[in-house]
């Protein structure tokens, strides 16, 4: 039951990225302060990992002749989900959990292909309600409150 190895995707780009990360991490490792006796103790592991990345990047780049093209057909959808993720966290910090989730839930469903307007509306009400009840009421976790506005202030706490 052996699987024939196929070339790794985007070897040139990955090799270059590893080398650049290795160089950056090595520089950052060398800027870690020494201890009171002037020893390198805190630098050993960061330096070893950084140098490993550098060496592995060089090896990867040398193998880049057998490059395999990367499937980029769904990058727009991935970028959309990433943008939604970042926006969701920012909205939580600005407007609190309830409003942010009421906005994020239908958008996430839309990205995954749900087109029913009734379903999307239901999600924007039921999702914040369900998560709020389970995590912030049931488990007693202190909810993330919005800096600018929070619905919990309006509806009377949590």
């Amino acid at each position, binding site marked *: 039951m052996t699987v024939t190895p196929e070339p*790794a995707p985007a070897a040139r780009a990955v090799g270059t990225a590893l080398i650049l990360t290795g160089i950056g991490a090595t520089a950052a490792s060398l800027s870690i302060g020494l201890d009171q006796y002037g020893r390198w103790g805190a630098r050993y592991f960061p330096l070893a990992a950084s140098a490993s990345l550098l060496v592995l990047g060089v*090896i990867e780049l040398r193998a880049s002749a057998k490059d395999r093209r990367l499937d980029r057909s769904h990058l727009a959808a991935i970028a959309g989900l990433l943008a939604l993720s970042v926006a969701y966290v920012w909205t939580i910090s600005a407007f609190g959990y309830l409003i942010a989730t009421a906005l994020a839930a239908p958008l996430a469903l839309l990205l995954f292909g749900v087109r029913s307007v009734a379903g999307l509306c239901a999600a924007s009400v039921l999702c914040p309600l369900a998560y709020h009840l389970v995590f912030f009421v049931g488990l007693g*976790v202190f909810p993330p409150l919005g800096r600018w506005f929070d619905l919990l202030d309006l509806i009377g706490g949590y």
Partner: protein
Amino acid sequence: MDIIAGLATVLGDPVLLAWVLLASVVGMIVGAIPGLTASAAIAMLLPLTFYMEPLPALAFLYVIGKSGRYGGSIAAILFNTPGTAASAATQLDGYPLARQGKAAKAMKVATISSVIGDLTGEILLIAGVAWIAAIALRLGPPELFAVYFAAFVVIGSVIGKSVVRGLASAALGILVAMVGLDPISATERFTFGSFDLTNGISLVPLMIGIFVLGEVFSQLETRQNQPALAAASPGDPSDNTLSWAEYKPCIPHVVRSSFIGAFIGMLPGLGSAIAAFVAYGEGKRRARDPQAWGRGALEGIAAPEAANNAVSGPSMAPLLTLGIPGSTIGAILIGVFLIHGIQIGPALFLTSRDLIFALFACGLIGIAMYGVIGYFGAAFVGRFITRIPAQVLYPVIFLTAFVAAYTSRGNLFDVYVMVAAGFAGWGMRKLDFNPAAFIISFVLAGGAEEAFRQSLLLSDTGLMIFVTRPIALAFLLIGVGALVLRVRRLARQRHASVQGSV
């Protein structure tokens, strides 16, 4: 005798039994959903267990891991889509049987074999783990560092498609673990002036990002190309009973595969997918009729299912005795131990012996529970899975990941970490990096660094301390040897494929 006391503890606590039962069902369902792994479910549910007592929390997640491995076979047999990587070998004979209208017979073989394999692994763990811990207690920092080194190299190089990218994943995991204050000198490392980073990167949001959000990104990509799941026809009910005469030829395969799985489980990082394929290959080599394998042989289901479940128990041995997780589930369980203030490692058997044997007892009861539920209800679980719309499931998982990451420390910075880790996890899967090696190395880095620096303080000869102590040298050589063997094997396969294509 410890396990008898553990069983008495568990059987006398109905609430604990209810958690184990719930974990059996949840694990089975999660394992049966293609693309959603037991690791992802455990990472997502981890914050819920912060509010539980240590034993129910550990038992809940441990049993989800066990029944999740078994649940993967349901999707493999019914939908020709393995629920987990570990059940990909089961698919080879399971789906042909389902197409012959014998899906329920195939699932019964998978259930019985999984239960026997899992029980074998668990019994070996119970019998051997305290003995391994006693040996581990005698290891000094140089030996411990050498064990960590071997684990880094084996985990980075042996699993995954690319040795270079696997090792790079491990190195990246170490680098991320270095963020924050140095535990000895309190020097800032990789904090870049950010106050949030001085506390370091927390394990829970990192795991949720890599295993849960990363999977959501991957599913968004793959679901657009995939048709909806369709279960194979249940067929004639008389074809779906399993007689002793039919199962008897499977028994040698189940016994052999259980030991193969248990052995592979003890080695950090190899995991149940490798165990299943090794057992399948070995079973086919020794089969009376190898031609029947791949066309619906019951033995072809029994062998990989016994092996992939036998991994579960022994994979806990390096975790509990050395603090080295043998699998991603082990890495996640480390989070539970740490959150509940339980220090893992060889001293665990001195400080929390009752807890550990009660956990093993929960494992045994969990195996019995998923065995009974699976034998009589696997087909129902299969039908239930087809009714869960992926368009709704993955957005719900997406939203749950955010609240779970926040719950771990009540900190929105952790949620940003989770998002970054999710995107990185997707990128790692896409580029053949190894997310499991990344996480396991992240977990191991702290202990490895401590052992390394303690060794240097003990040493009069600097780094030579690692080669002058025989056990340390042996583990260093095991690491290097595993790397060399893996590189040579891949080179040989590549050479053979080039020659084959000429």
